[in-house]
């Protein structure tokens, strides 16, 4: 096989895996949008906050240590213990559930029956609040996240492909792990939403609050549930992105990459978020590989957005979005 083609295949594979990471972030958006019609601007920050909390718990960091030290003149930073990764992840998940409860109690409950744009504005506020709160709680320095996921080049794939084609593929172990986790997450979430009683209730709430109440669905429970799930997805995304590039505040900006993914996949479709993510991931990498050299490179910065724009023009509901039904 010619080297160019092999290289293209490698680029595609890496694109697919980058796409998985985009999809993970987009998934959180879809979940909340489906259940409450809210476009949750804070999803990226939630991923950041989850990753910060996870690192903090793992390292036995004292929360609000700067604040405590400034007020009491003490000098505490660490509890002096390390929490095993699995336990730390469970604790962080619990924190995200608590966060969901707080959001419902202090934000959403007061905004029932408000138009979507108001709720959207509220999530912008929430995003900034959380960013500052995360900073205050865990400090602003860049942290290393290691929950024991495999890292670096996958030797087996490298060797096998080298033996087959005389050209070793570079595939990152972390990307493989992310793919596996994402597949499990998506399959279980889809099944949950389509076939379980709570999943059906969740879709019902998204559609009509009044009707949902009349069949005995508690809006509050559903909101706490859906924000918890979104928090959990944010945690997974935070772990993957944090392991890849460290936990830092730019992590919250990955949310921007989720936007074109959502426009492709549709705001209401879980499989759509995945396929959208994959298309963007692969498209981005292949476009850079094929067209990049002709236009001087750096196409990865804008490719996704242009693609999203085209979709907005020709298929505004996205690939998998619920059909926009209009009766005249």
């Amino acid at each position, binding site marked *: 096989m010619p080297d160019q083609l092999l290289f293209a295949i490698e680029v595609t594979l890496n694109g697919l895996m980058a796409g998985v990471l985009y999809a993970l972030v987009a998934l959180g958006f879809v979940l909340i949008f489906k259940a409450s019609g809210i476009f949750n601007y804070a999803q990226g920050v939630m991923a950041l906050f989850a990753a910060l909390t996870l690192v903090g718990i793992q390292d036995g960091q004292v929360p609000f240590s700067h604040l405590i030290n400034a007020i009491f003149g003490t000098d505490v930073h660490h509890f002096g213990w390390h929490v095993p990764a699995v336990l730390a992840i469970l604790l962080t998940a619990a924190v995200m559930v608590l966060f969901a409860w707080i959001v419902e109690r202090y934000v959403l409950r007061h905004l029932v029956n408000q138009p979507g744009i108001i709720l959207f504005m509220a999530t912008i506020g929430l995003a900034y609040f959380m960013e500052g709160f995360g900073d205050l709680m865990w400090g602003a320095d860049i942290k290393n996240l290691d929950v024991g996921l495999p890292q670096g080049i996958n030797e087996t794939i490298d060797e096998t492909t080298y033996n087959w084609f005389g050209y070793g593929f570079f595939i990152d172990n972390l990307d493989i792990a992310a793919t596996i986790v994402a597949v499990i997450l998506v399959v*279980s979430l889809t099944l949950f939403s389509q076939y379980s009683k709570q999943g059906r209730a969740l*879709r019902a709430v998204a559609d009509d609050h*009044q009707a949902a*109440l009349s069949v*005995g669905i508690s809006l509050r429970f559903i909101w706490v549930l859906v924000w918890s799930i979104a928090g959990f997805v944010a945690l997974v995304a935070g772990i993957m992105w944090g392991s890849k590039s460290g936990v830092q505040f730019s992590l919250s900006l990955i949310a921007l990459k989720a936007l074109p993914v959502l426009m492709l996949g549709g705001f209401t479709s879980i499989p759509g978020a995945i396929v959208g993510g994959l298309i963007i991931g692969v498209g981005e990498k292949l476009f850079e590989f094929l067209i990049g050299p002709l236009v001087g490179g750096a196409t990865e910065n804008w490719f996704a957005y242009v693609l999203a724009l085209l979709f907005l023009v020709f298929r505004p509901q996205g690939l998998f979005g619920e059909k926009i039904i209009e009766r005249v």
Partner: protein
Amino acid sequence: MNDMSPDSYVTPDGRTIGGVVMEMKNITLRFGGVVAIKDISFDIREGEIRAIIGPNGAGKSSMLNVISGFYVPQEGEVWFRGSKRPQMKPYEVAGQGIARTFQNIALFDGMSVLDNIMTGRLTKMKTGLASQALWFGRAEREEIEHREQVEKIIDFLEIQNIRKTPVGRLPYGLKKRVELARALAAEPKLLLLDEPMAGMNVEEKEDMSRFILDVNDEFGTTIALIEHDMGVVMDLSDRVVVMDYGKKIGDGTPDEVRGNQAVIDAYLGVAHD
């Protein structure tokens, strides 16, 4: 009828009407300075079709919203199945076995007819979040049982052929029928219908009337309904409450109500001097 209370009776067409299942006592509902319902009391008996009628703005829908928990009255008590109901959220009222439809149809447009009706069984499903999430056999068995019930209702209301259609695509009359199906799926002890025939043509009205009678006859469901069309009301209901400007001006069998001077005045207008 399992609890034949002493005051139960048999209607001319052979249905047994039981004791009081719901009683509204001195209900007053205000919105700011506007009094929507003024000191109204009435009861609903088990197995009967009870109509609430009155001109526009009489407070009929408000009354239905009080029963279903969407509005909380400032004064008065709601008694359901022998005990006073504490203040409840609408979803808790639904959990008690009171299902309803809406004047302006409140269905889940993006979901299929089947899924819409399945939501009606949410209060009947017992498996918890954990087993639902993990899809253990119990949740699956439960889903199948409920699906069977729902299919019965689908057959009953003759909507088999639109089972998989997204509700948003259906014409108005069918939407109304799906909404009725969803309410029935809850196997309600009391079914509230808010203008089930509003906006329908004669044929659709006849269909709907037939379904309401059949539901009452077949399942013994107690029904309280609001309706504008006097002809329909008089044909369907066992007893009628008449409201006007938030007050009760009549209560009795259709024949009694028809002869009531206050009711005639409210509907036909009367010269004030």
